[in-house]
């Protein structure tokens, strides 16, 4: 360090000391501003969308991650354990209601209620931007826990751009049976290989697996968390920081929900393969599947390359035919009245169109049509009134 040679120790030390002090003061300041309840995966939904994890008769029937899913499992076991299960997997469309009013209900709540008389128990599990690789491992995991009779599976063009397994699901990949099942398909092997080296303990200690240092590090982290609130808020800080960078990117490059999102071939292929694996596995395990393309805002130009979107629907339809799966294209199900806007995801502010989350009326339509289709599925094509 050539430049240091000409400097006194004092001039080298001062920035270090004052910089450290400033760092701690600013972190303390931000720590007091952070909302510990804020879920950053939900943050991008904007304040106009309200997440609602549904309870029917005080039993949770809609869950969002692995920690939470136990509540749904317990609810099932403690209430109607003899009934066959309908599993509905999805993304934030299922648990968010745009401009929610009192007594508004999500489609998952409605579908659960519709099926009470049919002795079918509907459990919904939805996570923001969930990709089909995640649905695949969740499906296999829940197959071990529940007598699943039917799987309702939405496919979302946006989520075909997502990849990898989120931290909250990594625990599943420690289950030996799941690993065995995943190893039966090429995409399963890839999912396992890519995700298995990550840590899911929440302690961020993946590099220390099985070492003496792991124990010491856990002890030190626990101690520091109990004495220093900033250490406890680090995950929130990281989330905040990435969100701010995301907003900055959107502001600088003029990106908003109406910007065209292109197909990402690599991720698309992996998700498509994961979907094929789910359908094959469901067939093997005699689970009926209702596959649908999600409702999309159609009163404005859609934010996709139209050819890519069309070929996406064709490919999904083709796959469903080849695997003998019931398929629904619901892209035009929700009329424009039921769509809304959401707060901007850039620093410019204002409102942006929401292409994914609709109002309660849309949820009602979705629940109705899924229910009708399930009736057809279970009764060999005959509709039941409800």
């Amino acid at each position, binding site marked *: 360090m050539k430049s240091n040679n000409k400097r006194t120790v004092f001039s080298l030390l001062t920035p270090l000391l004052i910089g450290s002090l400033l760092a701690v003061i600013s*972190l303390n300041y931000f720590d007091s501003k952070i909302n510990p309840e804020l879920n950053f995966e939900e943050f991008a939904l904007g304040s106009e969308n309200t997440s609602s994890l549904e309870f029917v008769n005080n039993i949770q029937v809609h869950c969002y991650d692995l920690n939470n899913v136990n509540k749904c499992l317990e609810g099932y076991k403690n209430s109607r354990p003899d009934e066959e299960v309908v599993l509905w997997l999805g993304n934030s469309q299922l648990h968010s209601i745009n401009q929610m009013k009192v007594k508004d209900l999500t489609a998952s709540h409605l579908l659960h209620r519709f099926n009470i008389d049919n002795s079918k128990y509907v459990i919904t599990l939805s996570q923001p931007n969930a990709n089909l690789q995640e649905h695949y491992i969740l499906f296999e995991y829940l197959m071990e826990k529940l007598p699943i009779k039917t799987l309702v599976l939405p496919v979302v063009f946006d989520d075909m751009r997502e990849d990898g397994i989120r931290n909250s699901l990594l625990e599943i990949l420690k289950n030996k049976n799941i690993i065995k099942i995943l190893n039966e398909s090429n995409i399963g092997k890839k999912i396992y290989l890519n995700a298995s080296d990550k840590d899911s303990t929440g302690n961020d200690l993946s590099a220390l697996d099985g070492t003496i240092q792991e124990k010491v590090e856990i002890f030190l982290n626990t101690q520091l968390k109990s004495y220093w609130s900033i250490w406890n808020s680090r995950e929130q800080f990281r989330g905040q920081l990435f969100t701010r960078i995301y907003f900055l990117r959107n502001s600088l490059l003029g990106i908003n929900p109406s910007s065209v999102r292109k197909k990402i071939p690599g991720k698309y292929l992996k998700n498509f393969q994961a979907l094929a694996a789910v359908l094959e596995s469901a067939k093997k395990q005699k689970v009926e599947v209702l596959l649908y393309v999600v409702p999309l805002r159609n009163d404005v130009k859609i934010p996709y390359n139209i050819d890519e979107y069309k070929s996406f629907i064709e490919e999904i339809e083709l796959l469903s035919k080849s695997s003998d799966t019931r398929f629904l294209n619901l892209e035009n199900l929700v009329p424009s009245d039921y769509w809304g806007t959401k707060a901007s995801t850039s620093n410019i502010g204002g409102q942006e169109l929401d292409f994914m989350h609709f109002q309660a009326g849309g949820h009602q339509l979705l629940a109705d049509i899924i229910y009708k289709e399930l009736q057809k599925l279970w009764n060999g094509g005959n509709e039941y009134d409800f």
Partner: protein
Amino acid sequence: MIFNSLTYLIFLSSIVILYWSLPLKPRLYLIFLASLVFYGFWRVEFIPVMLISVITDYFLALKIASSERIRKKQLLILSLFINIGLLFYFKYLIFFSDNAIGFANLLGITVNPILLNIILPLGISFYTFQTISYTVDVYRNQINPEKNFILYACYVIFFPQLIAGPVLRASEVIYQFSKRPPFKWEFIVVGLRRIIYGIFLKVVIADNIAPLVDSGFSIPIEILSALDVWTLGFLFGFQIYFDFSAYSHIALGSARLMGIKFPENFNFPYLANSPKDFWRRWHISLSSWIRDYLYLPLAGIKVGSQSLGGLEKATLNKNKNKPLFIAWAIMGLWHGANWTFVLWGVYHAVVIFIYRIMLPITSKFNQNLKLFGGIFLTLPIMMLSWIPFRAQSISDVFYMWSKVFNPYSYASLGMKENTYLITACLLISIFITWTVKNKLLPIFTKNKKVVLVCGEILVFSVLISLIIIFLRPINQFIYFQF
């Protein structure tokens, strides 16, 4: 012990306080024991393996110094046999047995696969190289053998460099351990600053690039476009650079806290204007080791004994190409027991070979053209070399490289937009950092000290805040696996 952890920071602080409170002899014992503890935090059972290498070369070096020529050579061969034997057993046995079985099967001889479960001891590639260089230096009469075992052992197993270098020479370090310099605040301040830079580069930059690289390389290669291959080469190049240079910063800073000065291991390698220049800037201690203990002897050239990097001595020699390829193939294999690493080494040999052929022509160009044209050409060539370093197989590497030369393969993008954006930002940030460090800092140091100090206060407050937020041993340093 992993550097980017609370454990290491507390361990290092305790050792530094104890170090400066002790007289010389206990200080050496402290370093020796601290280094064993440091290593034992990973796996205690591999400490004996390390000590075998240390003890063997201690005694053999003493014997070599007092022996006649033929006996000397025999002892040197024995030392090499033991060190390379350890390295071969732990690092290469599975690789070579798999290849031998594969070859036998190819010839129609049915051999069942042998199931070997060998764990690679952390840092074995580094400490065996140090013990080899020590014994060879004694054999060459470049240094005298160290009689004090603890002093010598401190050179080999000194914890800041034990696991991933720099690969030090005895002549650079032992004399520093043998003195007891008076405490200076400068050691602490300079050391701390290096450690802060290092942890920042590791936990904030390298660890956040890693998921993008993993995701990119997990995409089926048929889908990758030429631009994706370039982006992945650049992105992994940045990841490995920030990861490894971070380790070197922390190693140099930790040693500095105890008044020990290590030679620099990196110097803005991606701003090199030729392959030769690149290897004077990248992992300098290893490239100079390979030069002095492998390449120059193979080329029949007398060697020096300093970790200064570069291969220019050999360019004067007529018999230079065969050793070049052999040395680089071995350098590749040193990084990992896989043919992809050998390919990486051979790629560099080819690049240097072409550079040497072109040298008479390019030396006639004007300085600016040589400098900027050199950087412009060297950077992508070096970045493409990272593809075999990270890809799964040789066939994947060639498939990916072939895309680069296919004009039709430039029409699409196979990864998320952020990946390209982040890669571009990182590339620009390297140029900005170099300009600030080499052009602006000297001006401010000379004329505008207040501005400099204020700027540094701001920089350190940001770096330290980000370190607090991101410090976690989520990923090992990439070079640990070598």
